[in-house]
């Protein structure tokens, strides 16, 4: 079963900043439509005749899919899905695509979109239309807690990283990970979640705030 699709580019794409099989395999006559880039939502809003597409996928930033498709008392959903390839700050994109569905999104559209991403070697996790989707929702509180506990001298940065790598088999400890992928970038991601969810564990930790402030001065 092939899932041919057209790609509509609208500015820089955080999911596909460089050449990738998923983009290369696009077909100008494809039946489905993929909107990529920072202007994906706006381009989707202007597009017409999407109802017959097996699926329509809109690249998301921090926002919910409902921002682009609208919501109707919990009955929202069509052939449109949202997606974002997970990447932590400045790190390269991972093979993970978080595929966003609304309550009534058609199962066939989800299956078709999933198959298209997987055909390009990506792995797809399906989630509801919630701020932070899956990975950010889980790792941002953990990373904030690590930064806070570093300030509180729970352990040195090196010992904290070593403990989590040796004890849980994590490939990299939280402090090293944040230093490598960007504390200011962490600030932006977790601040967006804090605004959306209003929960304290998402409030940017002091070290992330400092990094953001210094970035503004540079």
């Amino acid at each position: 079963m092939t899932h041919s699709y057209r790609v509509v580019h609208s500015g820089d794409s955080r999911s596909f900043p460089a050449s990738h099989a998923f983009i290369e395999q696009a077909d100008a006559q494809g039946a489905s439509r993929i909107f990529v880039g920072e202007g994906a939502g706006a381009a989707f809003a202007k597009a017409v005749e999407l109802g017959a597409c097996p699926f329509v996928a809109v690249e998301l930033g921090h926002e919910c899919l409902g921002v682009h498709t609208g919501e109707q008392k919990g009955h929202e959903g069509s052939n449109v899905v949202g997606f974002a390839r997970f990447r932590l700050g400045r790190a390269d994109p991972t093979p993970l695509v978080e595929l966003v569905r609304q309550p009534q999104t058609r199962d066939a559209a989800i299956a078709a979109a999933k198959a298209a991403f997987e055909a390009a070697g990506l792995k797809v996790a399906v989630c509801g239309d919630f701020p932070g989707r899956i990975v950010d929702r889980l790792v941002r509180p953990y990373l904030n807690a690590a930064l806070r506990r570093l300030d509180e001298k729970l352990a040195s940065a090196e010992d904290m990283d070593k403990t989590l790598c040796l004890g849980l088999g994590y490939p990299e400890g939280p402090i090293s990970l944040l230093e490598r992928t960007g504390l200011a970038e962490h600030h932006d991601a977790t601040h967006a979640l804090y605004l959306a969810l209003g929960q304290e564990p998402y409030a940017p930790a002091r070290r992330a705030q400092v990094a953001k402030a210094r970035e503004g001065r540079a």
Partner: protein
Amino acid sequence: MSEIKTIGIAGAGTMGAGIAIVCARAGFRTRVFDLKQDALDRARSQTEGFLRKSVERGKLAGEKLPEIMAQWSGTTRLEDFADCDLVIEAVFESLPVKHDLFGKLDRICGPQAIFASNTSTISITEIAGGSGRPDRFVGMHFCLPAQLMKLVEMSPGLATSEETLARAWTVCEAMGQKPVKTQDTPGFVLNYFLIPFNNDAIRLVEQGVAEAADIDLAIKTGMGYAMGPLELLDLIGMDTQKLLCEAMHGVTNEPRAACPPLVKRMIAAGWLGRKSGRGFHPYADSKMYGA
């Protein structure tokens, strides 16, 4: 600084038996105490079984097996710890039980002996308060399974002397383990981060954000973790997670450490994880709880 040659392990459960393997394998005279003889017999048999497999896998020279087993001895009499230079406690997480144990040990062991607790959630300072020798008391938190995991969280209590920490650190390295220093706070480093992280993953399921399989896939693929949080919870067991939550939340009051209602419902349903054949994922090859 006196040399540590004989180590006592109090408690022959999974954790104590694993720590005893680490000690005996490193050449220390290792004495394991438990009130129940069958627990000691099981620990000894598990130790032999583990070492035999290590030999089969080429990780241990065959002639080392009897040497290591000769270092290992079990006892139901705490008085047999009289000549121990270090006692590591690995009994269940109850402050009164630990105080009672260390109170007795303080009368039995020589003044040079240092005491350590493998607790993962109770304050080292509080346990040391009932030991009669808080200056010679330290936290040594091994990871499960101790015989395979290298990490040991070393936590000094408020009164722990620098010499005690240094002696325990040295013996830990001599065991071939990798010590890290942490504050004496609930969960130390590992559980402080792990328990709330796992709870957050459970809440994503509760709130319908994603299915368990999608959450595990996302974390493994996005973060490169070897296991997803819900797979790990199935391994730990919902009953254990509840106990860990209660111990940590009871001290810290941190909302993320509070046991999610879904855990309690899963326990009521017998969905404990791998050990019952069903947790967040089904395990067809495991025994079904209550079946």
